[in-house]
């Protein structure tokens, strides 16, 4: 009986935290990362590398602005290339954060608590990286504020074209960025107060004091907080779906073969969540290993994430199939040519990389052993993001390089500025992430604690069960005496 009970305990309610953790342990462990007496050498080495990449980004953007966007390789017929590929890729990566923090919150998926903070931070950093590309593609970003937003001004004497999905994109992405920051910050307030209370007097205490907005943890505070959090989750939820839907409209509303398809919105959202979860996985596995968070980010979390990655990989794979089917079924020669050209044309390697990384490799996650193997999931999280980058490359460049007129056909090659700008955005992303890890609690302390009571409850019931049906010796062997 006892064996069966423990199996049930393990299978039906696998622990979200190590079973031996107390509330205080959680606070201590998560806060300790931000309370390093001496910042480890590894952190300094990492941030030296990432901030060098960030400087590379700044240098590339300066070069671009002072010279002109001709320094990028995109030119007729491929007017969009790496820039928009990177934009869609980064913005897609951001989607996991909002999905985890908003939709999983509304669905009462408690396992989100261990990973939502880092995922939300990642969202914001990814949106920042994404925004760089369209902004600098305008060539004169300081003027773009008048081109993008309907601000009355004496420069243009005209309004934006509201029928253009590019304009919807401006609102979608800026709303997304704003709401993500608000949501993230609201969630941070109680934890910032925790850090404030643990800090010795000094600058640290003042800074956390300012940003915790006078939080004292009274029940009135919590009541308002939970209401605000719920409302923000409600606002964020449609954004998870709308942002990438509108990004997909940038393509779907045009008449280019390969772009002009109605499957794009769900296809893009699925792909965004796919790549977002993969990026969360990459970063969390590294953070978990470096900061010894195995007892908080447990195998249960990782396994659930891998299931989401598998499911979204299937959505993406199904969408690829649909595109091909519709191209054939439409009978349109341009559509048919385009999709045939994807597999066999000059960019065949991009399409095959995409397919293998996005559709074939994640199938390993059908096997439970693979879902629970750290090395496997790390590799798959990387290949997934390689594949998802190629997906955007395939959609953008492959659709453009073969124009309707064969006389306009071309072949896009990135310039060194394209490559360095893209590498530079990793510098921005990772520098922000490293600063985040050092100065802010990377796991939502208050929220993780809320899972502990449920877990303790199950343990308690289990202990009673053993007491009732088993002898005291059995209890001891289970470590519950």
């Amino acid at each position, binding site marked *: 009986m006892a064996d069966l009970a423990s199996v049930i305990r393990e299978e039906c309610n696998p622990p979200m935290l190590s079973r031996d953790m107390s509330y205080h342990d959680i606070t201590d462990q998560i806060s300790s990362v931000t309370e390093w007496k001496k910042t480890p050498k590894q952190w300094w080495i990492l941030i030296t590398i990432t901030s060098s990449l960030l400087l590379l980004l700044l240098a590339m953007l300066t070069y671009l602005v002072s010279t002109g966007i001709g320094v990028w390789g995109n030119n007729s017929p491929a007017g969009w290339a790496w820039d928009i590929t990177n934009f869609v890729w980064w913005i897609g990566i951001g989607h996991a954060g909002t999905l985890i923090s908003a939709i999983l919150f509304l669905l009462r998926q408690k396992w989100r608590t261990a990973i939502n903070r880092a995922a939300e931070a990642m969202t914001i950093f990814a949106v920042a990286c994404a925004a760089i590309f369209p902004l600098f593609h305008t060539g004169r970003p300081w003027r773009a504020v008048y081109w993008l937003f309907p601000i009355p001004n004496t*420069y243009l004497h005209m309004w934006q074209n509201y029928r253009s999905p590019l304009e919807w994109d401006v609102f979608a992405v800026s709303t997304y960025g704003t709401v993500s920051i608000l949501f993230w910050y609201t969630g941070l307030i109680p934890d910032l107060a925790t850090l404030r209370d643990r800090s010795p007097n000094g600058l640290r205490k003042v800074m956390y004091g300012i940003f915790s907005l006078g939080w004292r943890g009274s029940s009135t505070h919590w009541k308002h907080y939970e209401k605000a959090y719920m409302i923000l989750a409600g606002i964020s939820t449609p954004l998870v779906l709308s942002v990438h839907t509108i990004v997909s409209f940038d393509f779907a509303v045009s008449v280019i073969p390969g772009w002009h398809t109605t499957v794009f919105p769900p296809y893009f959202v699925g792909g965004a969540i796919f790549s977002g979860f993969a990026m969360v996985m990459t970063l969390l596995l590294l953070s978990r290993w470096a900061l010894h968070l195995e007892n908080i980010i447990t195998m249960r979390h990782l396994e659930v994430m891998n299931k989401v990655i598998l499911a979204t990989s299937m959505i993406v794979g199904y969408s690829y199939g649909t595109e091909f089917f519709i191209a054939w079924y439409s009978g349109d020669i341009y559509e048919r040519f385009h999709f045939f050209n994807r597999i066999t044309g000059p960019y065949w390697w991009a399409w095959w990389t995409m397919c293998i990384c996005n559709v074939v490799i994640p199938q390993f996650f059908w096997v439970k052993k693979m879902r629970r193997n750290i090395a496997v999931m790390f590799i798959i999280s990387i290949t997934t993001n390689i594949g998802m980058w190629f997906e955007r490359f395939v959609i953008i460049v492959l659709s453009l390089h073969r124009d309707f007129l064969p006389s306009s056909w071309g072949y896009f090659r990135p310039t060194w500025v394209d490559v360095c700008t893209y590498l530079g955005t990793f510098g921005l992303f990772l520098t922000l992430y490293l600063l985040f890890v050092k100065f802010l609690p990377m796991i939502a302390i208050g929220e993780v604690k809320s899972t502990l009571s449920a877990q303790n409850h199950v343990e308690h019931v289990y202990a009673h069960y053993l007491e009732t049906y088993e002898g005291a010796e059995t209890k001891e062997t289970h470590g519950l005496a």
Partner: protein
Amino acid sequence: MAAFFPKIVDKYVQIGGILSTVGAVIGIAVFAYATSPSVLKTGYQPVQPVPYSHKLHAGNMGMDCYYCHYTVYKAAYAAIPPTQVCMNCHAKVKTDSPLLEKVRESYATGQPVQWVRVHKLADYVYFNHSAHINSGVSCVSCHGRVDQMLEVRQVKPLNMFFCLECHRNPAPNLRPVQYVTKLDWTPPNGEDPAVIGRRIIAEKHISPPVNCSGCHR
């Protein structure tokens, strides 16, 4: 846990919030005004190497703009005259004026006088003088009363707003082509310039482009 900040901080936050909001609004307004083309661009009056007076030549003596800027009816670019054009007269007139030293030197050496350009459009804008002049847009619409300027200065902002205002409603700025260089021209018999303009639009089928690629080609 005792409160870390004293209670008075609440007041500071409130006052600080109000002040920074008001400050931001004022700051943005000042920035927007100070960087608007009508402030930033108009009034530009560089010092020219030769103190050439448009008021004397085009105003008092009544020379036609076209005498020196002789490409405007045919070309996109309004020519800055070569020294030879100056010397058409100044080979005979004021031959020993010290003010004309640089003109004579240029004539002798073949090196052009380094005039400083006053009206400069951005490189991403296509502007064609002949298209405008032949439609009946006078010099004065964009350059102002150059015939009254001792030294030329920019009087119009020449930004997109300025261009579009006329492209959307060209009638008030149109006149018969023979009068485009007559900067002080007013419609005869007190007629409304817009009425004349509409007549010209109908005659010449004028429809100035207002789409992006009209000017950003």
